[in-house]
């Protein structure tokens, strides 16, 4: 994806629809003119402009392209669970224009060579922007520092632990002090490994009834507290990722009031589903962190609404079908979720739990600001856009899903919310009639 290639090419005029910027301000779209990868004109000026192509967005919302702070593209890897080509196309279909690629690949992204490999593959295979996240520790093993400065120079936008914990608090403290040296953001999924132990489901009503091994809430909250205290001491910019507990939201709000530089995200499915999703041993909902109680779900939604949680992520983790075809405890955790994020979000809007503006902020300007980018629709802004029809329906199934992972959160049931057009620097990354 070279900048020159994008900026050359044809001009496009989008007419009709409603504009929703990252802050949720809604205006009728008279016209948007896109030329040279940027928004060349808006409003009346755009209406009268000549363009090579036009796109009619009647009945649609036009928002900045979605930004995903946590997803797995599975490359490098053995290919069975997906690759950059398949997963970025799925992301484009989901309205995403920028995705942060988790370092948990095979091999782990802990060296310049792997970072270059990801970026090179993205240039040839990805219709959207791929921003690699480097490993916080070498091999994500939680023992030695990774070459953080080198990773950053190679193009990593942050360092993180993927889904693996760091057992030793002394090493964590040193990771933070070192990352802080270069002003890096640490993206960390909080989990105390000794408390999580062999668990694979929320330690609560459903695990008690079904006899599943629980992961208690304190496995997350103890780690959140530890991370907040260490971040306060070291001054590192901390981003807590993939939260599952209501208590975590409270602790983050407190820390912010004390002036700690902390941001946070939550996976969309954590806002929609609860522990009850496992009632029929449905292995798709074997997730890490697990889906928790209804009270936790509500607190997480409130966290997004109130802005304590900055971003909503896909936590996309595609698998081959064999990884999910086994008794629940023997399956691998994760959902193939990136194509369903918008539809799940719109279901929350429909239920009245989230305003459309909160949803759009959580998918655009919220995550963009965490990684120092902007997501807005104004004159001369980069033309990263998503045009979606909130009333049109699609049904996730083997035919419609693009990701290599077919274990979507909803299968065989019609969902509202279809992305009509995804533009990255003015270029079509996804278009559907």
């Amino acid at each position: 994806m070279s900048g020159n290639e994008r900026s050359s090419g044809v001009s496009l005029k989008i007419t009709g629809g409603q504009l929703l910027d990252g802050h949720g301000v809604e205006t009728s779209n008279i016209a948007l003119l896109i030329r040279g990868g940027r928004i060349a004109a808006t409003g009346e000026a755009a209406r009268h402009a000549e363009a090579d192509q036009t796109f009619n967005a009647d009945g649609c919302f036009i928002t900045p392209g979605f930004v995903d702070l946590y997803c797995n593209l599975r490359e490098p890897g053995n290919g069975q669970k997906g690759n950059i080509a398949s997963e970025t196309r799925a992301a484009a279909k989901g309205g995403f224009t920028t995705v942060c690629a988790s370092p948990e690949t095979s091999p782990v992204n802990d060296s310049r060579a792997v970072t270059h490999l990801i970026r090179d593959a993205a240039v040839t295979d990805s219709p959207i922007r791929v921003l690699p996240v480097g490993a916080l520790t070498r091999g994500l093993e939680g023992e030695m520092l990774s070459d953080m400065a080198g990773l950053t120079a190679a193009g990593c936008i942050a360092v993180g632990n993927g889904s693996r914990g760091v057992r030793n608090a002394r090493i964590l403290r040193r990771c933070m002090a070192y990352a802080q040296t270069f002003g890096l953001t640490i993206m960390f999924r909080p989990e105390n490994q000794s408390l999580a132990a062999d668990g694979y489901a929320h330690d609560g009503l459903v695990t008690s009834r079904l006899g599943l091994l629980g992961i208690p809430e304190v496995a997350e909250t103890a780690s959140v507290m530890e991370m907040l205290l260490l971040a306060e001491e070291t001054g590192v910019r901390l981003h807590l990722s993939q939260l599952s507990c209501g208590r975590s939201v409270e602790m983050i709000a407190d820390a912010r009031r004390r002036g700690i530089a902390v941001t946070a995200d939550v996976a969309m499915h954590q806002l929609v589903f609860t522990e009850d999703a496992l009632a029929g041993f449905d292995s798709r909902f074997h997730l890490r962190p697990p889906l928790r109680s209804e009270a936790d779900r509500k607190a997480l939604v409130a966290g997004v609404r109130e802005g304590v949680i900055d971003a909503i992520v896909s936590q996309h983790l595609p698998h081959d079908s064999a990884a999910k075809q086994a008794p629940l405890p023997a399956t691998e955790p994760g959902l193939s979720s990136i194509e369903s994020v918008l539809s799940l979000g719109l279901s929350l809007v429909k239920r009245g739990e989230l305003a459309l503006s909160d949803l759009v902020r959580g998918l655009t300007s919220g995550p963009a600001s965490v990684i120092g980018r902007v997501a807005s629709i104004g004159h001369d802004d980069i033309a990263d856009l998503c045009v979606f029809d909130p009333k049109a329906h699609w049904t996730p199934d083997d035919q419609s899903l693009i990701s290599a992972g077919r274990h979507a959160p909803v299968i065989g049931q019609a969902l509202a919310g279809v992305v009509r057009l995804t533009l990255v620097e003015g270029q079509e990354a996804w278009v559907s009639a």
Partner: protein
Amino acid sequence: MIANAASPNHLQLTRDGQLRHFLTLDGLGRDLLTDILDTADSFIEVGERRIKKVPLLRGRTVVNLFFESSTRTRSTFELAAKRLSADVLNLDINTSATSKGESLSDTLLNLEAMASDMFVVRHAQSGAPHFIAESVTPGVAIINAGDGRHAHPTQAMLDMLTIRQHKGAFEGLKVAIVGDVLHSRVARSQIRALNELGAEQIRIIAPGTLLPRDVESLGCTVEYDMARGMKDLDVVIMLRLQKERMEGALLPSEREFYRLYGLSQDKLALAHPECIVMHPGPINRGVEIESSVADGPQSVILNQVTNGIAIRMAVMSMAMGGQVAERQQKLTELTERGQA
């Protein structure tokens, strides 16, 4: 609106509410549970005949699929199937295919090729029988013979049969389950059955480390002090304590556990004089129960074993009946559609 996945009962019941698999007691109503107990009662008489066979499963093949070893449960299932005149194949899989890396799905595909009619499944992972029931060819019945910590529904039903034989009815009964409820599939199924059948009180007696989170939500009360918990009891069910519980820091020592939660003559004396003593076995004498109590007049532990055969005959014949009825219904519907 997007809803969470439904309860698993569409899986084990036919449209008319008959059993087609027997996976869990969750969602099974009092009528169906009573039906199972009544059917089992009628099979007890078969066990007392000189020729102990009825032809209900003649020509059917039952495969005992034991992914976790068990002598007693497997042999009672085997006897039950043979008394129903089925052909029985016993497979101890923990020693064969899976240890060679074959997945459960692949093992099943191979077994289905043998044209079996019923799988009796024991597995170390909670939910394995559900998974198998979802993936087998229609027409094959799955009977859960114990999965992980989840459920052991035939054990719970044979316990209910034993209680009914001794106490007549469930209304007004005070029942305690003592010991390692956290790891016990038996206790989960018993609590469910006792609630559905109308027991008055279900007390769990155990230290905090051996209780599941929010255990009261299952429909029981918790008592840490065994002396208080034994008061006025009609039925006391002891659970087996696995020795490895000491290693995970769940308990300090066997000795302390026995002193606090072992069923001794002294503690039994605190219950109702006609309180019966039950244990799903195999028992650890001197760990959770005193020998003289296990062998004493109030113990019904051996009745439980006898009843196990009758309950398994009942459940196997009912599930096979449900499968056959469902197949016939589908055939009728197809024929009618053809004629129309």
